[in-house]
């Protein structure tokens, strides 16, 4: 991982950037700065403004307000064409032009006025780094999707961009091509020192790619931090949904008298006990409706409505009763690529994910579910 250089200006800085598409605001960023060599992944639902963000950074979408600086140089009327050449963009479709693979890889350099021989030499090197050097004389139409995307990446890196913008470049590839391409991309980024922004729907890809992970909702950056932080502690309910958190249980937020510990009183769906006592060591009350959580996201207030967010993989199943565990019954069970997933139902319904270390509990089994406080958090809208 390339570390930000102290004192160097950000590779990309966007401040107050607002972009309008037709009648709506597609992007409304307060502030986003990406350090030289830093890798940032951005996730968000369709229409959240991910592509608009990349287009604004590529100086293709015209913001109606705000300032964009590339490597410390403010984009101004007249400087756009020159600054545009300091970045490169790779799209979902490789958009290769007619001519040979080598011609395509050299196109960016040719457009920048490089001598044909120099452009082809540099392009050839990058094709080789992406493992498609042997295809240099082929026509793009004869390439597989994975090969074509490697050529598109080589074309982007050949211009030695300071900022690489990736618009779901792997989403049309099969899992094997994607798995093979990601490490090569990481190596190329490390070798070139370019900063990179990846927008994607794929959470695994986003989590693995970035130094930081951002969540874009309705054109606004709801959250941006280290991937582990974002994935375990979504800032809002909407962010939690986008981040694929399977269990979002509605309730009312509670705060300890000392103002330190958060808990939630869930709206029970199957049973209701008015005065359950919260176990002192965390976990949940025996009725399953009162659960302690480590943190609360943006806007959660004591006594206010909130949701408990916990990943299916963070919830645990126990064979017997334990303090802070909720008795429940297994309702459904399914196999997943990395284990199994069951839906259990007690006072509340919960999806729990397990690995291959043991078989899933049979449907109808009586079991105890536990929500570890340090793996859950409270969110609100």
């Amino acid at each position, binding site marked *: 991982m390339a570390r930000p250089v102290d004192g160097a200006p950000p590779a990309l800085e966007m401040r107050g950037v607002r972009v309008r598409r037709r009648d709506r605001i597609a992007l409304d960023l307060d502030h986003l700065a990406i350090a030289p060599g830093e890798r940032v992944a951005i996730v968000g639902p369709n229409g959240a403004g991910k592509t608009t963000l990349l*287009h604004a950074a590529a100086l293709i979408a015209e913001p109606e307000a705000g300032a964009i600086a590339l490597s410390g140089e403010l984009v101004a009327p007249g400087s756009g064409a020159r600054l545009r050449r300091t970045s490169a963009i790779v799209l979902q479709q490789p958009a290769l032009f007619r001519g040979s693979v080598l011609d395509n890889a050299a196109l960016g350099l040719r457009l920048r006025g490089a001598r044909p021989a120099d452009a082809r030499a540099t392009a050839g090197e990058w094709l080789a780094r992406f493992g498609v050097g042997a295809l240099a004389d082929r026509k793009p139409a004869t390439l597989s999707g994975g090969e074509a995307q490697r050529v598109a990446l080589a074309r982007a890196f050949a211009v030695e961009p300071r900022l690489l913008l990736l618009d779901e470049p792997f989403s049309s590839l099969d899992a094997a091509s994607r798995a093979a391409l990601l490490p090569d991309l990481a190596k190329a980024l490390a070798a070139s020192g370019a900063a990179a922004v990846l927008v994607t729907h794929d959470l695994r890809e986003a989590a693995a790619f970035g130094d930081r992970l951002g969540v874009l909702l309705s054109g606004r950056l709801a959250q941006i931090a280290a991937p582990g932080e974002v994935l375990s502690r979504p800032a809002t309910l909407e962010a939690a949904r986008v981040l694929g958190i399977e269990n979002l249980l509605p309730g009312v937020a509670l705060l300890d008298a000392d103002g330190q510990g958060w808990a939630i009183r869930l709206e029970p769906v199957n049973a209701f006990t008015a005065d359950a006592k919260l176990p002192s060591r965390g976990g949940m009350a025996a009725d399953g409706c009162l659960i302690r959580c480590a943190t609360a996201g943006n806007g959660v207030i004591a006594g206010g409505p909130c949701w408990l967010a916990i990943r299916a993989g963070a919830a645990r199943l126990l064979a017997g009763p334990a303090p802070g565990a909720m008795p429940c019954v297994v309702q459904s069970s399914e196999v997943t690529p990395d284990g199994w997933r069951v839906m259990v139902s007690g006072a509340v319904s919960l999806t729990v994910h397990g690995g291959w270390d043991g078989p899933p509990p049979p449907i109808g089994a009586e079991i105890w579910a536990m929500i570890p406080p340090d793996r859950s958090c409270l969110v609100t809208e």
Partner: protein
Amino acid sequence: MSDLLAGLVEGIRLLLSGNAEVWSIAWLSLRVSLGATMVALVLGVPVGAVLAHRRTAHGDLPPGTARTLALGAVHAGMGLPPVVAGLIVSMLLWRNGPLGALHLLYTPLAMAIAQAAIATPIVAGLTAAALNGLDPGYRLQLRSMGAGPLRETWLLLREARVGMLAAVVAGFGAVISEVGAAMMVGGNIKGQTRVLTTATVLEVNRGQFEMAVALSVVLLALVYGVTLVLTIAQGRR
């Protein structure tokens, strides 16, 4: 039916026998219509490129009102009746018309001008359609790589080669086959402005159906030959 057969036989005989008049008529048809198609490409492709959406992404702004109105006019022009084009051009070229001093009326050049007026909207409209049919990613990719507007348009036209071939074929097909404009500005003067279509009309009026069918066969062979050359050229590149 027997007229048709006899005409076919006569047509093939005329083609093979090297009838000087038929060959000179066919040669003039080809020169005038190819010239008109060239002019239509020179004028129509830039117009079509300007009128194509500047799309770079889904959800980009729709084309402005001026562009929509202009594109509508081009689309209407694609259906311009040849006889109307011929009328307008001949009125411009009449001795007391604005371009009368050039003395172009009843010359092959006048016919080429009228035919270019017919083909230009067709080429422009199909160029815009061909460019709009491209994945917006191509334009976006070129722009992000710092291509200027001319380079961008040139590379996109190359990418839209199938649609561009259709534009050339449609433009050429429209003018080689039209009779109204050629008649009106050319006058069907034997040895000077007589082309295959006007000659065919004349032979029909004379009751010479065999000759008319023969000329039509030559015309069809000519159209097929030219479009075949274009198709092969497109496939090779």
